[in-house]
C-alpha cells in the first residue's frame, strides 16, 4: 500500500505540474459554478409572478373581475382582445370566451381554456395551474355568497340585468379574505425539484469531478502509455497491480481534490451571497465528503478505462470532453432530471453522475443523513469496480 501511495502522490505531483490541469481544476469549474448559479438563480416560481396572457373575448364586468383576481393571485397578466389574439405570441394563454358574463349570470356552463406554448417552463406551468385553481375557487365562492338566484329559464332569452349596487357587492366579496385557503409548502429544506443554486452547485461539482479527471487523467495516462514511462515503470520491481493501483488512487485523489475545491467555492458563493445567490451545503458536510468517495472511485475507474482505450493524447482530450459532457447531461448535472423525458430519466440510472447527484440532493437538498444515500453509494462502488476491472484489462502497461 505504501508503494501504491508513492506512485499515486508522484502522479498527482505530475498532474499539478501541468498548468492546464491547474486551470481546469481551480479556475474553470469555479467560474462555471458561479455562472450557472447566477443564470438559474430565480429561486423557482414560489416567490415569483407567473406570466399569463389573457384573451378577454367577453369584456364583461365578470370577466374583468376575474382578471383582477388573477392579478392578485400572483399572475403577471397581459390582457388582449380577441382580435389581437391570433397575431400575438405567448408562453401561457387563458381564453375567456365571449358571453362569459352573461352565461355565468344565466347559470350556464362556461369553459375557460389554458394553453401552454412549447417554450414554457414546466415548473412555472405547474405553478400556473395551481394558482388558476385557487383563483377559480375564490371566484366561485364569491359568486355563491353573492347569492343571485337563477333567472327563470322559461323567460325569453332576456339579458340579465345587474344593478350597480349588486355589482359592488360582488366586487366587495371578491376583495374580502377567503374563508378557507390552502397554503402549499414543500417538505425538506428545499423543493422537490431542485432549482437555482441548489441545482447548479451540486451539478457543477458532479460534472467537474468527472470532467477534470476524465480529460486530464486520460490524457496523462495516454501520454504515459505512448511515452514509455508506463512500461519503464513495469521494468522496476513494481507489479502491474501496484502500478494500476497507483493510477487509480491518484485519479481518485484528483477527483476528491476537485470536489473539495468546488465545495469550498459553493460555500463561499452562498456565504457571501455573491450575485444574490442563496446556497448552503447544510449541516452534513462530512457526509457529503464521505458520500463522494465512491463517486471518486467510479470516476477513477472510468478514466483508467478511457486511458486504456484511447490511442492518442488528442483523442483523450476531445473524447474525454465528450464523455464528461454526456455524463453530466444524462446524470442531471445541468438541469433537474424531472424535466427530462421519461426515457432519459430511465437511462440516467446507467450513469454514475445520476447516482452522485442523488447523493448530493439527498444530503444537501433534503437534509437526509448518510442512511438515505446508502443505495447510491453502493451503486457508485459497483460502477467503480466494474470500470476499474475493465480498465485494468484494457490498459497496456508493458510496451
Amino acid at each position: 500500500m505504501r508503494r501504491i501511495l508513492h506512485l499515486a502522490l508522484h502522479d498527482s505531483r505530475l498532474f499539478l505540474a501541468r498548468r492546464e490541469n491547474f486551470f481546469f481544476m481551480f479556475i474553470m469549474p469555479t467560474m462555471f459554478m458561479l455562472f450557472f448559479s447566477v443564470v438559474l438563480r430565480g429561486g423557482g416560481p414560489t416567490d415569483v409572478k407567473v406570466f399569463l396572457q389573457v384573451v378577454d373575448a367577453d369584456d364583461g364586468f365578470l370577466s374583468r373581475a376575474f382578471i383582477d383576481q388573477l392579478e392578485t393571485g400572483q399572475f403577471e397578466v397581459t390582457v388582449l382582445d380577441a382580435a389581437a389574439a391570433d397575431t400575438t405570441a405567448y408562453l401561457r394563454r387563458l381564453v375567456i370566451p365571449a358571453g362569459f358574463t352573461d352565461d355565468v349570470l344565466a347559470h350556464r356552463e362556461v369553459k375557460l381554456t389554458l394553453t401552454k406554448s412549447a417554450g414554457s417552463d414546466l415548473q412555472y406551468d405547474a405553478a400556473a395551474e395551481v394558482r388558476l385553481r385557487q383563483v377559480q375557487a375564490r371566484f366561485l365562492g364569491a359568486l355563491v355568497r353573492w347569492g343571485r338566484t337563477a333567472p327563470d329559464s322559461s323567460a325569453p332569452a332576456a339579458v340579465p340585468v345587474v344593478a350597480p349596487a349588486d355589482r359592488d357587492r360582488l366586487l366587495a366579496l371578491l376583495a374580502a379574505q377567503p374563508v378557507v385557503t390552502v397554503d402549499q409548502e414543500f417538505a425538506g429544506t428545499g423543493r422537490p425539484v431542485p432549482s437555482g443554486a441548489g441545482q447548479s452547485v451540486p451539478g457543477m461539482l458532479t460534472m467537474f469531478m468527472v470532467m477534470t479527471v476524465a480529460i486530464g487523467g486520460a490524457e496523462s495516462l495516454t501520454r504515459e502509455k505512448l511515452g514509455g514511462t508506463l512500461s519503464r515503470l513495469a521494468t522496476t520491481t513494481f507489479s502491474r497491480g501496484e502500478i494500476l493501483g497507483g493510477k487509480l488512487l491518484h485519479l481518485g485523489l484528483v477527483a476528491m481534490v476537485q470536489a473539495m475545491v468546488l465545495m469550498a467555492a459553493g460555500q463561499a458563493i452562498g456565504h457571501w451571497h455573491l450575485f444574490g445567490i442563496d446556497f448552503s451545503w447544510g449541516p452534513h458536510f462530512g457526509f457529503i465528503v464521505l458520500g463522494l468517495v465512491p463517486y471518486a472511485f467510479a470516476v477513477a475507474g472510468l478514466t483508467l478505462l478511457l486511458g486504456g482505450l484511447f490511442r492518442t493524447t488528442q483523442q483523450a482530450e476531445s473524447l474525454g470532453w465528450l464523455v464528461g459532457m454526456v455524463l453530466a447531461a444524462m446524470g442531471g448535472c445541468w438541469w433537474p432530471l424531472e424535466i427530462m423525458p421519461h426515457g432519459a430519466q430511465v437511462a440516467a440510472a446507467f450513469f454514475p453522475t445520476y447516482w452522485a447527484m442523488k447523493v448530493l440532493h439527498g444530503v444537501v437538498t433534503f437534509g437526509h443523513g448518510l442512511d438515505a444515500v446508502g443505495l447510491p453509494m453502493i451503486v457508485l462502488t459497483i460502477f467503480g469496480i466494474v470500470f476499474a476491472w475493465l480498465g485494468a484489462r484494457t490498459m497496456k502497461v508493458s510496451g
Partner: protein
Amino acid sequence: MTPVLEVRDLHKVFGDLTAVDGISFSVNEGEIYGFLGPNGAGKTTSISMICGLLPPTEGEVLVMGLSIAEDPRGVKRLLGVVPQEVAVYEELSARMNLEFWGGIYGLKGKALRERVNGLLAQVGLDDRAAEPVKNFSGGMKRRLNLAMGLVHDPQLILLDEPTVGIDPQARHKILDIVKQIAADGRTVLYTTHYLEEAEDLCDRLAIIDHGSILAEGTVAELKAKLGEGSLLTVQGGFKAPELAAAAGAVAGLQPVEIIDGRGMLVVGRDGPGVSNALSGLFQAGLAFDDITIKEPNLEDLFLNLTGRELRD
C-alpha cells in the same frame, strides 16, 4: 562462476511474425556484450523479454541464476533498463526524475540525494538539473534517460540503442559512461546498429538479424571469420553477370555482393593475392572506374553474413 545473464533458446512470435527466433548467449560479470543488428532484427524484443516486459513464447532468461519467470521481482531488482525511446517525465526537472526513480527502488534521504548528485555530474546535467526536461535537447534527454536506468546501481544494465540520433560529442560522453560502468564491475548488454560503437565498446558481441544470432565472439574473432584476406570493391560500366563470370574464373576470389556497375569481392589469404586477382579481372576485359582495397571490418562481415548493409 555463474554468468550474470544467461539466455536460453529465446523465441518471440507475434502472430505470423517470428521476431526472435531462438537466441542463446551468456554474459559474464563486468562484460559489455553487444547486440549488433539492423532495424527490425529483434533487439528490442529480446531486451523486453530479458527485463520481463514481454513474456517469451519459448525459452528462458536467468539473471545471476534467478529465473525472470519464477522470480520477477528478485530479477528486476538487479536490472537497470534504458529503453530505446526516451521515457522521462517531461514536466519534471532532471533531478526530480532521478529522485522519483531512486524512490521507486527504495532509495531515500541523504543516500538518494548523493546518488542523484553523483549521477547528474556523471552525465553532465548538473548545471541544468532544476529545469523541466521538456526544455532539454535530444542529447540531454538521452543522457537523463541513461542516468535513470542507473540510479539504483543495478548489477545488469540493459541499454537499447542509447546513442540514437545524437551528436558525436554527446555520444562519446555516453560511451565513456558505459565503459565506466563496466569498469566498476557492472555488466552491460548493449544493443546498437552502429558498427564503430560495437567495435569500440564491446568485449564480445552477437550479430543478429531476423531474430537469430548469425555470429558471436570478440571483435577479433568475428573479423577472423571473414578470413584474413582483403576486400576488393570495384565499380565501372559492367553488368553483374559479366563481373560474376570474370570473378569465377579467378581461383580464390569470393564474390560477396555483385550488382550492375558494382561488386565486392574477398581475396582469401590462401588465394591468388590482390594483384593477381585484379589482373584476372582486367583480362576479362571489364572497364573499371574505381577500385578500392581494404582490410575487412564488421560492416563487411555483416554484409557477408546477411547480404545487405547494416544501415537502411
